[in-house]
C-alpha cells in the first residue's frame, strides 16, 4: 500500500493530512521552526552556538520540575535557561577556568540534574518525548503554550530587530550612542530560552540546538544581506520541518531526528553549491555556459 502511494506525489503529501495529529504536527512544527529560524540568524552571527547548546540542555530540570508542580513548563525552562547563563557568567568571573569549559560543565550538570529528577519524580513525564521530541503527540495545552510563546518571541525579535543586529555587529557602538546593551543581551538570552522550550517539543532537548543554529548557518552561506538571511533561515527551517515530518511518517522514522537531518542536508547543499560561498560556486559553473 505504501509503495502505491509513492506513485503520485499528490498522495504523498495529501494522505498524511487526513490524520488530525499529522495536521497538528505539521502546523506546530512549522511555527516552532519559524521562531527558531528567526532567532538563528542572530545566534550564528553573535557566535552563540555553544551558548544555545548550553541553554537548551539546561532547561531540562526546569521542564521536569514544572511538570511535577503542574506549572507551565515554559516557566520552569525559562528560569533554568537564564539561570544556567548567570551561573556560567559567575563561575567564569570567579575562577580561572576557561569559558568553553565552564559552559560545558554547567550545562551537562543541569542536564544530568534533569535526568535524575525524572527518575525520582515518578509522574507521567515521558523522558523519551523530552529528549527526542514528540511533534506527533502534542497536547492541546501544549499547543496553546507553544503558540503564545512563539508569538511573544516573534514580536520581541521584530520590535528589536535592528537593535539586536547592531548588538551582534558592534556592541561598542551601540553603547556609545546610548543603546541599552545589557537589556539587549538579556533579551536575546530570554528569546533563546523561550525558543529552546518550544523547539524541544519538535525535536527534543538533545537536538534543539540544531534548530537554533543550522538554519542561520545555511542562510549565512547564501546571502550578504541581513534581512534576506532572516527570511532564508526561517524558510529553510520550515521546509526542513515539513520534509522531516513527511519522511518520518512514510518511512516510520524518529520525527525529531528526521527534521534535524533535513536541516543538515539543506546546509550541506548550501555548503557545496552556494552561489558565492559554496565549495562549487554555482554562479561560476553557470557563467561557463554563457
Amino acid at each position, binding site marked *: 500500500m505504501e509503495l502505491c502511494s509513492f506513485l503520485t506525489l499528490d498522495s504523498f503529501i495529501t494522505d498524511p493530512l487526513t490524520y488530525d495529529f499529522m495536521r497538528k504536527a505539521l502546523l506546530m512544527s512549522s511555527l516552532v521552526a519559524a521562531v527558531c529560524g528567526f532567532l538563528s540568524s542572530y545566534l550564528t552571527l553573535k557566535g552563540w552556538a555553544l551558548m544555545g547548546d548550553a541553554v537548551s540542555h539546561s532547561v531540562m530540570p526546569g521542564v521536569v520540575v514544572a511538570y511535577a508542580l503542574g506549572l507551565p513548563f515554559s516557566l520552569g525552562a525559562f528560569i533554568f535557561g537564564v539561570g544556567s547563563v548567570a551561573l556560567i557568567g559567575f563561575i567564569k*568571573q570567579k575562577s580561572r577556568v576557561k569559558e568553553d569549559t565552564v559552559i560545558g560543565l554547567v550545562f551537562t550538570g543541569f542536564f544530568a540534574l534533569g535526568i535524575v529528577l525524572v527518575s525520582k519524580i515518578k509522574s507521567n513525564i515521558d523522558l523519551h518525548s523530552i529528549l527526542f521530541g514528540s511533534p506527533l503527540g502534542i497536547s492541546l495545552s501544549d499547543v496553546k503554550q507553544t503558540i503564545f510563546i512563539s508569538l511573544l518571541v516573534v514580536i520581541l525579535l521584530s520590535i528589536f530587530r535592528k537593535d539586536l543586529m*547592531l548588538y551582534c555587529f*558592534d556592541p561598542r557602538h551601540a553603547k*556609545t550612542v546610548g543603546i541599552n546593551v545589557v537589556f539587549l543581551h538579556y533579551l536575546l538570552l530570554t528569546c533563546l530560552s523561550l525558543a529552546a522550550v518550544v523547539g524541544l517539543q519538535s525535536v527534543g532537548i538533545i537536538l534543539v540546538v540544531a534548530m537554533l543554529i543550522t538554519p542561520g548557518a545555511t542562510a549565512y552561506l547564501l546571502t550578504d*544581506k541581513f534581512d534576506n538571511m532572516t527570511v532564508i533561515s526561517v524558510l529553510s527551517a520550515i521546509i526542513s520541518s515539513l520534509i522531516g515530518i513527511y519522511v518520518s511518517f512514510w518511512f516510520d522514522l524518529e520525527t525529531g531526528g528526521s527534521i534535524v537531518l533535513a536541516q543538515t542536508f539543506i546546509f550541506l547543499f548550501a555548503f557545496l553549491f552556494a552561489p558565492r560561498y559554496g565549495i562549487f560556486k554555482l554562479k561560476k559553473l553557470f557563467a561557463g555556459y554563457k
Partner: protein
Amino acid sequence: METVNYQNFRIDAENICVDYNGKVALYDANLRLKPGQICGLVGMNGAGKTTFFNALTGFVNISKGKIRINGESVRSAQKDQTIAYVPQNEGIDSQFPISVWDVVMMGRYGSMNIFRCPRESDVQAVKDAIERVDLTDQLSTPIGNLSGGQRKRTFLARAIAQRATILLLDEPFSGVDIRTEKLISELFIQFKNEGKTILLSTHDMIHVREFCDLVLLINKTVVAYGETSEVFTPENITTTFGGISPDFLFGPES
C-alpha cells in the same frame, strides 16, 4: 591660576582608573581636550589605549576618577550622540552580512525611534556622510567585499552621520591604502575647522607629528601629555615604550 570652567573642555578625564577583575589596565590618567583639538594617543600594545577609549565611551566603567564630556556625564553624552567611536579594522566582523549603507545608518540609531525607522533627515545624513568619504558608488556593497581602506571610510562615515562632536579613532591609518590615508587627512582638517575634537591612537610616529596638536603618551598611566612639539621627545617616547630607543622603533630622525 584661573578657575577651570569645565564647559570649555570637550573631554575632561580626571585621575581615571580602570580595572578588569582586579587587574589594573589604567590608573590615574588625565586628559583635557578642547573643541578643535586633535590629540594622538601613543603607547605599546596593552598600554591601555583601548581601555582609555572604552572608558570615554562608557563601554567599561571606571573604578576611580571622573569623566566629564562637555561638562556632563558619560551617560548623557551617550544620549546626546556626542561621542563616535571608529573601531580598528580588526575589531569588527567583516563577514557580517551588512552593507555600507546599513553600517552608516547605524550612526543614526541613537536618535531614531525604538523601531529605528529612518526619517527623511536620517537618509539625507547617511547620504551626505557616504559622499564625504567618497563611497557613493558602494552604497549597497556588503562590507565583506570592501578593501581595508574602504571599510575604514565606512566607519568614518558612520561617525559623520552620527554628527558626533568627539571622534575616537582606533588606529585610523593602519591597513589603509594611500587614497584613504589622504582622504582621512583631509577629513581631519575639515573636522578641526568644524570644531570637532579628535582623539586617535596610532603606532605611526610620523602621523603624530603631522596631525596632532597634542599628544598623550601612556603606559598604564600617563607618561607625558602636552603640545606635540614639546612632549613628543625621544626621551619620553623611550619611557613610553619601556626603554626601547625611538631609533629602533621608527628609524633615526632624518
